[in-house]
């Protein structure tokens, strides 16, 4: 922080301290270490864009093709890098186009700061051109928001925005800046925010609760850990591993917790949720002590709450107090940061192995393999399956790639079968289920982790929702690999129609464009395959190519994702077929 000029001895600011609001916006971003923003210019944000032009050697602006793309790219960037994603849009439609991404970041706890232009203060409420009530619209879907109407407010609000976005349970913040505040002047001085008196970022875990939790764990016969993204957000991967290994407890991840542990870790039993693994779901109703870490008992994880772990004592380690007892009644609440609390808890638990209990998971795995995995991942006839494509990706990436998915069947298959050896490697829209997330999020993820291989696994439905972002790949030369699993259907909806609506395929069949021509138009190397024999080579070619690549794989039109916990059913009622 210290690039600012201090006030002189008379207490007034030196002339160099006097800058415009729009320059202050850019300098605040620099103070927070932002060197990359995703955005789209327009009338009410033009002064800021003018400053971005002047500071272009310090901040790289990525021009998206639709503001929604900016939010998802910022999310992908935040999740691959662990930093705060930043995006900029103009007022009115520019701001409203951000809404889906903001809501997505809110429910998936992604740190993001969105800056929106606004009409001048004197026109607020007058239905001016491109005026919309951004505060009113975004309040329910932001962690915090503020409308700046005077230039002098800019440094303090930006400092608070970045602090709030990344601290505690992270989330999106919106800063709406009227045009007069951008044009206005201020005596610029920046101080990073480290405390907000009305807000507790890191609650202090209770010592008594820690001991109670340890006692429960030490007396458990069938303890079971469920962990989520909180582990990744608090960078508690090592602490989780140490805890799991010492206590010898089987651990299952939520879709947002994927990659927080290695896939092949012997104590990692797989994925929870509607399309998760069989054992992890069934054992919820067999365990005697459940230890939930950095997860929020989403309904896609719990199924029917009346049939969820009623026999178990529940320990819930969570930084957000509002999650405790929200869905599942907790016996011991450990309200705090996962890294800190696990660090304190592990010394209190006894070493154990629980071998007989592990064996039960293995028996379930064998059933799932026979009924589901074998056919999905190693078919020998018929059209290709999504599962065999993901397995082939694993073979070539050795679990080192970042896998970004869109939403639908391909997402569930990718999350089920992709292998991970590094944290922050799974980027998906878990809570909101936003179709169109995948492509822009992958672009952001690659820019956030340029040295890693980033693969967007998308469906033919989702990619068409944000396909315009191929323009970013063209203009910014982002080396993402896109694997389109094309079944010419909105597959997940079709699956539900087949299972629960007597195969009435209402509005789910897709007449698609020639994706190869689209890729070609954007000057992206591409290939389309529909023969199993070509898969291995096609993936190798894609990964070896020095640049972006678009691989379209034609897969079975009416394949289903199993296992499946039907909507409204309990987790034990999971179906293998």
């Amino acid at each position, binding site marked *: 922080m210290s690039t600012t000029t201090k006030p002189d001895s008379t207490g007034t600011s030196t002339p160099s301290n006097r800058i415009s609001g729009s320059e202050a916006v850019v300098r605040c971003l620099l103070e927070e270490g932002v060197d990359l923003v995703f955005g789209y210019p327009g009338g009410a944000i033009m002064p800021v864009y003018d400053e971005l032009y002047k500071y272009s050697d310090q901040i790289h602006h990525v021009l998206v093709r639709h503001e929604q793309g900016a939010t998802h790219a910022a999310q992908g960037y935040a999740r691959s890098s662990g930093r705060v994603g930043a995006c900029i849009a103009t007022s009115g439609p520019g701001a409203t186009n951000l809404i889906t991404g903001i809501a997505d970041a809110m429910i998936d706890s992604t740190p993001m700061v969105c800056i929106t232009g606004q009409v001048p203060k004197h026109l607020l409420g007058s239905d001016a051109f491109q005026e919309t009530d951004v505060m009113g619209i975004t*309040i*329910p879907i932001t962690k915090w928001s503020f*409308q700046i109407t005077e230039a002098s407010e800019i440094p303090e609000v930006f400092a608070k925005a970045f602090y709030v976005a990344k601290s505690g349970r992270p989330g999106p913040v919106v800063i709406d800046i009227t045009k007069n505040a951008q044009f206005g002047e201020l005596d610029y001085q920046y101080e990073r925010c480290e405390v*907000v008196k*009305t807000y*507790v970022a890191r609650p202090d875990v209770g010592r008594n609760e820690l001991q109670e939790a340890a006692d429960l764990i030490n007396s458990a016969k069938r303890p079971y850990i469920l962990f989520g993204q909180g582990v990744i957000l608090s960078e508690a991967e090592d602490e989780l591993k140490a805890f799991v290994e010492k206590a010898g407890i089987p651990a299952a991840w939520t879709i947002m917790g994927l990659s927080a542990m290695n896939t092949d870790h012997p104590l990692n039993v797989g994925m929870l949720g509607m399309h998760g693994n069989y054992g992890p779901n069934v054992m919820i109703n067999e365990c005697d002590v459940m230890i939930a870490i950095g997860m929020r008992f989403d309904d896609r994880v719990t199924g029917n709450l009346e049939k969820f772990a009623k026999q178990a004592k529940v320990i819930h380690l969570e930084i*957000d*107090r509002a999650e405790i007892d*929200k869905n599942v009644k907790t016996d011991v609440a450990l309200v705090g940061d996962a890294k800190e609390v696990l660090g304190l808890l592990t010394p209190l638990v006894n070493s154990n192995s629980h071998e007989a209990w592990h064996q039960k998971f293995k028996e379930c795995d064998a059933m799932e393999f026979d009924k589901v995995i074998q056919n999905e991942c190693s078919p020998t006839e018929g059209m290709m399956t999504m599962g065999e494509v993901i397995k082939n990706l694993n073979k070539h990436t050795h679990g080192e790639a970042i896998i970004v998915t869109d939403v639908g069947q391909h997402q569930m298959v990718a999350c089920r079968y992709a292998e991970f050896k590094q944290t922050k490697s799974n980027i998906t829209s878990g809570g909101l289920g936003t179709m169109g997330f995948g492509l822009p999020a992958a672009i952001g993820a690659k820019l956030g982790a340029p040295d890693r291989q980033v693969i967007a696994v998308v469906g033919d439905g989702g990619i068409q929702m944000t396909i315009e972002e191929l323009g970013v790949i063209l203009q910014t030369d982002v080396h993402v690999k896109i694997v389109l699993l094309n079944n010419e259907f909105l597959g997940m909806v079709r699956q539900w129609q087949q299972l629960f609506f007597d195969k009435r395929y209402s509005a789910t069949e897709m007449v698609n464009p020639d994706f190869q021509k689209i890729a070609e138009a954007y000057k992206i190397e591409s290939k389309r395959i529909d023969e199993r024999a070509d898969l291995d080579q096609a993936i190798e070619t894609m990964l070896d190519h020095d640049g972006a690549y678009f691989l379209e794989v034609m897969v079975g039109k009416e394949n289903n994702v199993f296992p499946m916990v039907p909507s409204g059913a309990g987790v034990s009622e999971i179906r293998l077929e």
Partner: protein
Amino acid sequence: MPQQITIAVFSENKAGLLHRVTTSFTRRKINIESLTASESEVPGIHRYTIVVEITPADADKLVHALEKQVDIQKAFWYSNEEIIFREIALYKIRAEAMTDGSPALDVVDRHHARILSVEEHFTVIQKTGRREATTQLFKELEPYGILEFVRSGRVAISRPMKELKDYLVELKIASAR
């Protein structure tokens, strides 16, 4: 079972904050029966007193969701037994109904209501109390012609002795960690 719950929310007084408070209710489809915004005993801290009809379990969740908001300091919920509460009601009555010896004056007297203002064409009566009491007075004055009626939201004081200041000190220590 849903019951009458009074929620007290303490925050700094900032534009847009009321919207943040009320969205916590509307997204859960909880109807707000009454809402009062006022100062508190701590300088710079405002309080919202909000009356709703929900279960204690939902009240717990709601209060935690409110406290999670960055600009909200503290939120509490109380059953009616845990608070002392009042509302204030004003009744505008035709002047001729309130002349000497009128039975309407007896009604006002019996209810310990106050005559706030006597004007040429009307009289304004004030009654402070619980809703049932102000409603009963309304019913009894109705035959004499009520020109206008208004009732405030609930104001409530909690019975527990722990002061807001103590919570704020705890919060200050916690947020500075």
